[in-house]
């Protein structure tokens, strides 16, 4: 069996091609999904990629969440399907209330583009089982509306339930509360993060590693984690 992972394209999505490429490099079939179709095409998992859907008008992700495909994504996520939201996809997941909190403009207002170190805080989600708890990874980060905010009650709850999936290490690039880079839902099947694992999946095209330039592939395990989980339950 080959796992089928859907990648959603909204108007203004930028990283759908890279996300599909990451899915294929990890060993699954990438299935194109379109925002206007209320059809998940029998996929086993869904990636909401980065970009500026609807030009970030109103708020990032605010209009995309009402796209016909999102009703299906929400139903599937509530049924346990692995869903990964990257950057703008993370913003869509918070707007549609699959994940708590929200993203506001970076504290310093600058657009940031850099190779970012993260610590994997929860290696038991559908998208992180191929990592170790506490493992540090380097993947690209690029955003302007990346400051994760939530009220203290929600933040305490996330911490207590181990739902902070990733934390920024070394430098908090956007002022996110408690250095949070990504979170998961109670069940662990829905994960959202601001940095971009799909840009760090092939040697020669990834972030700089300690050993040599452009060789970082730390993002690939997001996708191999999901695939392994899907094949185990198939």
């Amino acid at each position, binding site marked *: 069996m080959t796992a089928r992972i859907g990648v959603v394209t909204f108007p203004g999505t930028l990283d759908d091609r890279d996300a599909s490429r990451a899915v294929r490099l990890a060993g699954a079939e990438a299935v194109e999904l379109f925002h206007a179709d209320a059809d998940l095409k029998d996929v086993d998992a869904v990636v909401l990629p980065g970009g500026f859907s609807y030009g970030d008008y*109103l*708020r990032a992700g*605010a*209009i995309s969440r*009402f796209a016909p495909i999102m009703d299906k994504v929400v139903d599937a996520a509530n049924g346990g399907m692995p869903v990964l939201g990257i950057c703008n996809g993370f913003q869509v997941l*918070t*707007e549609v209330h699959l994940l*708590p*909190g*929200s993203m*506001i*403009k*970076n*504290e*310093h*207002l600058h657009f940031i583009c850099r190779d970012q170190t993260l610590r994997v805080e929860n290696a038991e989600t559908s998208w992180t089982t191929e990592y170790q708890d506490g493992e540090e990874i380097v993947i690209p980060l690029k955003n302007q509306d990346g*400051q994760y*905010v*939530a*009220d203290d009650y929600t933040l305490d709850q996330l911490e207590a339930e181990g739902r902070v999936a990733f934390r920024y290490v070394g430098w908090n690039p956007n*002022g996110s509360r408690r250095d949070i880079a990504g979170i998961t839902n109670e069940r662990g099947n829905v994960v959202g993060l601001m940095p971009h694992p799909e840009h760090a999946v092939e040697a020669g095209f990834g972030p700089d590693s300690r050993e040599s330039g452009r060789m970082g592939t730390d993002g690939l395990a997001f996708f191999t984690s999901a695939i392994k989980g899907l094949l185990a339950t198939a």
Partner: protein
Amino acid sequence: MATILVHVMPKPEILDPQGKAVGAALPRLGFDGISQVRQGKRFELTVDGEVTDEVLANVRKAAETLLSNPVIEDVVQVKVVREGGCGCGGHGHGAGKAEKDLLA
């Protein structure tokens, strides 16, 4: 025809980076004495026909559902301006009758 204004502001406890940046720029330009700036959004919704309670309830629902995100923002005002104007005091976006009256 009437215009309904909806004002949305970041919640008081949410840091407002844009307002902060504007606040920092003001004294640099010689505008002293302003201790804080918070930046929100103003929506002008034009509706055909009477603004009934039902229409207003519908707009309030839209304001809570799409125009604002309750996690980070509050809808601070929903206000009806009749006869095509928006009561803004005239900032050159197609002044209606009410707006002209205000300017007069």
